[in-house]
């Protein structure tokens, strides 16, 4: 592992406002969904809410664990590709 040469205060100076803005954007997104709620929750939003709990962790590796949560957990190739795009969250997470 390569130690980042910047001091902790410098990293905070460089990244705090950006992280603050992103946090507020997520909060606003969830508020917006609440105001316009219709029917059952989209599986992607459920996955997002579940992944957000990882942000409370004090153990490094949060990004990898969130990406793992959002990933297809199966191991075998699927029979056929019926679409070309990806959604960002695995569909079965809603069940």
């Amino acid at each position, binding site marked *: *592992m*390569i*130690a*980042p*040469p*910047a001091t902790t205060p*410098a*990293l905070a100076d*460089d*990244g705090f406002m950006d992280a603050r803005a992103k946090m507020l954007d997520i909060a606003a997104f969830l508020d917006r969904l609440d105001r316009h709620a219709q029917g059952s929750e989209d599986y992607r939003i459920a996955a997002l809410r579940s992944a957000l709990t990882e942000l409370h962790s004090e153990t490094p*590796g949060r*990004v*990898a664990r969130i*990406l*793992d949560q*959002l*990933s*297809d*957990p*199966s*191991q075998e*190739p*699927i*029979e*056929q*590709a019926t*679409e*070309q*795009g*990806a*959604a*960002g*969250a*695995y569909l079965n997470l809603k069940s």
Partner: protein
Amino acid sequence: MRYIEPHAHMVSRTTDDYERMVTSGCQAVIEPAFWAGFDRSSAQGFYDYLRQITEYEPRRAAKYLLPHYCWLCINPKESEDTVLADEVLSIIPEFIGKPNVLGIGEIGLNKNSKNELAVLEKHIQLAADHDQMVLVHTPHLEDKRKGTKLIVDALKNHPEIDPAKIIIDHVEEHTVGIVKDAGFWAGITLYPESKCTSARATDILEIYGTEQIWINSACDWGHSNPLAVPQTALHMRRRGHDQEFIDKILFKNPHDFLSQSPNFKAL
């Protein structure tokens, strides 16, 4: 500052981007064959595309004094149709001898289907038969982790190809270890939303080290930035990394990997 852009789909960019890249220090640009944003209807469409990236695009880049290289394949997004894939695979050898060709790529998986995997294995065999390097695309988002594992397993079935001549691209925090532990090179793609930011790419380099790894913009017709690589150098400097660190990631590493092809010569 000098850098190599090791993954850019320049056929979908303007000549203004060539000028901006060169004036930002770009020494060479590498173009893997990719999906055009829609499915091509015949092998003839691919034939014309392969002519474009082996004949026309190098001339367009040369107007800006930028060496242009490419990789050849049918992209995994079009691999579900195995009849079309076989037809395209049959015309690729005609282009392997072109002077700007570095190998077979970007092959890989998209939705991790059986047909995609079968076409991937045929591409790997093609590379082995023609002693070519390989550049591999890993799937997007929720499909990436599973696809990366399937790809690594498929490549391990071909020990005749030196892992040092294979780069597995688009790694993120949950897949970079899978790739590096297997002995392959890893590529980090800088995308505004769907892959890595400059900050996360720098984090990965700090955690996993600077050996056998590069960064690229993978700029194409979508939401992407052809100057993402030099802009990441600025982020690295702001974090306190020195010129030696930056030059290794932006220039020396891609130069070392690509120089395994006798065709590659940076400025």
